[in-house]
């Protein structure tokens, strides 16, 4: 139940797809990001100005080197603190540290030490690495991938706005080229950040969306002390292919960014037209870029990622760069081209690319995620930029040609795109790992653990003990013949006879208990089987037994049921060609379900197809249905065609048709699957559920059996259309959902997932369904995220709108749109 959406919600929902209740945390994250980037903008402007003022540009490489070393140290310290402090304390501690050290720098700057600007330079870089990483760690703690996709546009834009306003504030308030008093403004922003962080922690506590147990990073896990530190973080990244790819992609993107910076500067250097207005132009250009980036982030990022998915979104940034660089390579260098390059780089890097990059961390298990994240975001970021510089210098040593560098950049981007493709493929596997498989299809689980035929025979045998010695003997012999008279069953059959309740039935059972222990074993068992078979084939035996059975069948007086049961059972042991069809037909039609059950089994085992019609008729009666199904299964796949012919008969009872479908599914052959798929193709709404269930059963029992994709997809579309109609009916009615309507909706959802299972990896779909159906809010979200990543676009666009957790009004809108689109196609 949701309250009437607030005005704030109404306003925010125009920007991103926000759900009631998410406004507060999204805005808090927006301000968190805004405040730290505003603080950073001020610190950054002082960093460059003071460094150049005191030490000059020549000494910048020294600053790069020391920054890289220091960040390595910070990774080690941060990972240790992360393991011992709660998330809130870690962030507050870090912010307090930066506030105090900022004040200290302000004090020390007044002493005029030249080398202080070097320390400040390194400190500013550490500040950036720590606070930004911590911000994204908090996002990881709070949101699942679905929520992040929807909301990153909004809270991510806070960072860009902070950059704009921080920069502008610096410009407006600076009274000198190096105005260290601005540090107090940065400290003010950081103090406000502490307040926001507390409010976020409070929200997390109230909503139960705090950092998971693992993410408090207790040093004690399973009694072992968890290893932390730089090496451990490095080992985590190297140890997992997903992190290696992620790190590789990020490193390549940063190297490319370094190359693009150089190419941009090179073109601008050669452009004389701007002259003295160069500084002012770039000031405006950079400010304009940030404004563009802000709008891209706010209005496009979430929509784009939601619509096109992670893979496509992650390829956009490098693809645009390739296009612009190709232009730069092919056309004469111009300022317009350089500006386009820089604008593409900065506007997409801080928005779409950064958002997708952060999304990729979210499904990773917290035990490793945060170690990898601090290594990649803090250390690798710096290292890759440095590496980019070194590579650029090496290339420039050989050639200063702009076109040459552009070509190299294109090659690097192609490599980066390949890595991005790989990492987004792995992403689906990471999401899959988040979804626990909760159950297996009953048939599969039972089939793997139990021998159903054995159980049936065993139960029949136990049951027949109270009926007659002959039936019991025949059942035991049957078990023996099928090599199923296991010692435990033999013991059970013997031991239970001595129970007080049973022994009181008379001496018959006591004798039987004795007789059971007399049953031969080993080689003697084989001899017995051989002898019985030989006797059953004897001419004299046939003559005698046929006469006896004729009498038994004709005699339907009360109390003669057992005799007919014995006769029916005996036929199952006789050689097929000796089973008298006429008597068997009589027994099949017997009023007693027990007689009829045994007769059906005998008919099936002797393979007499002339009795098929009688058996199929018995599918109608619920009392005899399951036995008829068993008998038809005993006939085996040779009757597949006959069963399919019966399905064609229009006037055949619906229950019989459903039972035939059940039989075909339990046969689990390719031929049965093909026939069922053909039936599914026909317009038979009353049988669709059974047909889909049957194909799903086959698919689970034998994944190697294929189900025609075109039929599955056509049916998927139809089922989605039906689901939409059901949703519309329930949504339009406004009132609470009736029990029957709810069941119908769940059935329809289940059918949609089953049909998806025929088109995509069954295990993935099954995991998604189980978690969607019975999981927590997060596991439902991960289920949808998995579908989002494995379904092709057209399927994704049909399925996800039905499954997303939406307020009724939004759902109604989506369902109507979907129905319109389905109608058009």
């Amino acid at each position, binding site marked *: 139940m949701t309250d009437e959406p607030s005005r704030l919600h109404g306003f925010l929902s125009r920007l991103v797809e926000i759900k009631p209740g998410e406004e507060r945390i999204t805005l808090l994250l927006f301000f968190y990001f805004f405040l730290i980037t505003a603080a950073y903008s001020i610190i950054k402007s002082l960093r460059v100005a003071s460094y150049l003022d005191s030490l000059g540009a020549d000494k910048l490489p020294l600053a790069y080197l020391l920054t890289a070393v220091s960040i390595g140290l910070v990774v080690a310290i941060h990972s240790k603190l992360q393991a011992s402090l709660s998330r809130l304390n870690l962030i507050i501690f870090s912010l307090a540290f930066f506030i105090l050290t900022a004040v200290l720098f302000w004090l020390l700057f007044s002493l005029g030490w030249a080398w202080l600007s070097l320390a400040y330079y390194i400190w500013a870089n550490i500040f950036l690495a720590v606070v930004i990483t911590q911000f994204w760690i908090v996002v990881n703690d709070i949101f699942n991938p679905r929520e992040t996709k929807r909301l990153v546009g909004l809270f991510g834009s806070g960072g860009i706005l902070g950059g704009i306003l921080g920069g502008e504030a610096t410009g407006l308030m600076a009274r000198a080229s190096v105005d260290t008093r601005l540090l107090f403004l940065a400290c003010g922003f950081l103090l406000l950040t502490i307040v926001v962080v507390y409010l976020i922690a409070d929200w997390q506590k109230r909503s139960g969306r705090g950092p998971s147990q693992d993410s408090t990073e207790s040093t004690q896990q399973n009694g072992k002390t968890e290893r932390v530190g730089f090496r451990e973080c490095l080992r985590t990244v190297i140890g997992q292919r997903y992190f290696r790819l992620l790190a590789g992609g990020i490193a390549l993107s940063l190297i490319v960014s370094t190359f693009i910076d150089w190419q941009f500067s090179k073109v601008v250097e050669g452009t004389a037209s701007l002259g003295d207005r160069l500084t002012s132009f770039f000031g405006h250009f950079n400010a304009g870029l940030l404004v563009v980036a802000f709008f891209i982030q706010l209005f496009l990022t979430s929509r784009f990622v939601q619509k096109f998915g992670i893979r496509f979104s992650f390829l956009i940034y490098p693809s645009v760069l390739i296009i612009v660089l190709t232009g730069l390579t092919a056309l004469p260098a111009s300022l317009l081209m350089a500006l386009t390059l820089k604008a593409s780089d900065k506007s997409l890097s801080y928005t779409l690319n950064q958002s997708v990059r952060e999304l990729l961390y979210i499904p990773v298990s917290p035990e490793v995620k945060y170690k990898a994240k601090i290594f990649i975001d803090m250390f690798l970021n710096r290292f890759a930029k440095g590496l980019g510089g070194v590579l650029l210098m090496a290339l420039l040593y050989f050639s200063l040609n702009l076109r040459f560098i552009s070509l190299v950049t294109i090659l690097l981007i192609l490599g980066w795109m390949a890595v991005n493709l790989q990492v987004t493929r792995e992403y689906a596997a990471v999401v899959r790992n988040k979804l626990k498989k909760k159950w297996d299809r009953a048939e599969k689980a039972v089939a793997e653990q139990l021998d159903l035929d054995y159980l049936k025979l065993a139960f029949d045998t136990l049951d027949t003990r109270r009926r007659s*010695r*002959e039936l019991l003997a025949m059942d035991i012999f049957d078990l023996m013949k099928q090599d199923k008279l296991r010692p435990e069953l033999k013991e059970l059959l013997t031991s239970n006879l001595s129970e007080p309740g049973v022994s009181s039935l008379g001496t018959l059972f006591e004798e039987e208990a004795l007789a059971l222990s007399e049953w031969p074993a080993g080689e003697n068992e084989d001899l017995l089987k051989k*002898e*019985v078979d030989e*006797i059953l084939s004897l001419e004299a035996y046939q003559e005698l037994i046929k006469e006896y059975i004729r009498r038994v069948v004709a005699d339907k007086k009360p109390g003669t049921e057992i005799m007919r049961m*014995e006769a029916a059972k005996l036929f199952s*042991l006789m050689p097929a060609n000796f089973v008298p069809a006429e008597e068997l037909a009589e027994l099949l039609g017997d009023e007693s379900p027990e007689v009829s059950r045994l007769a059906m089994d005998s008919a099936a085992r002797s393979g007499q197809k002339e009795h098929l019609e009688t058996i199929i008729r018995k599918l109608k009666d619920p009392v005899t249905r399951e036995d008829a199904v068993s008998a038809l299964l005993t006939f085996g796949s040779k009757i597949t065609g006959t069963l399919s012919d019966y399905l064609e008969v229009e006037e055949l009872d619906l229950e019989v048709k459903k039972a035939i479908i059940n039989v075909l599914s339990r046969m689990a052959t390719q031929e049965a699957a093909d026939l069922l798929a053909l039936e599914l193709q026909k317009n038979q709404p009353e049988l669709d559920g059974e047909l889909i269930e049957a194909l799903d059963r086959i698919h689970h029992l034998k994944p190697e059996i294929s189900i025609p994709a075109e039929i599955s997809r056509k049916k998927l579309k139809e089922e989605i259309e039906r689901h939409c109609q059901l949703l519309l009916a329930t949504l339009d009615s406004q009132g609470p959902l009736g029990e029957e309507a709810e069941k119908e909706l769940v059935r329809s959802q289940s059918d949609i997932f089953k049909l998806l299972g025929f088109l995509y990896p069954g295990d993935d779909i099954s995991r998604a369904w189980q978690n969607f159906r019975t999981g927590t809010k997060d596991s439902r979200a991960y289920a949808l995220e998995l579908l989002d990543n494995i379904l092709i676009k057209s399927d994704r666009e049909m399925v996800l709108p039905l499954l997303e957790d939406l307020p009724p009004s939004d759902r109604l809108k989506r369902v109507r749109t979907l129905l319109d689109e389905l109608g058009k196609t």
Partner: protein
Amino acid sequence: MKISTREINDILIVDIEGEIRRSDITDMTLHQWIKQQLERGKRKILLNFEKVEFIDSFGVGEILASYISANNLGGKLKLVRISKKLYLIFQVTMLTRVLEIYDDEQVALESFFKE
């Protein structure tokens, strides 16, 4: 296989000794011997298996053929003291429902008298 007979009233008690199996066919099979007795007018026959050590399917066939022959001539052929193993086979093949089998000779004889 050795056969000896006793007669109580008009009931022929056939005491069989040894094995009744295909590989051990003597000059005359059990069925042929019974047919001979039937031809001599014997109509009530009790086969005593107390000293029979082994019967194979061939032996069972001989018993069944003898039973049919006796029946066809309006006679009665009954069995007494068969082994547990044979009884088990008769149960599995439902011959216990067709043949009259007794544990005790006296009871078997009385069953003839009652008829």
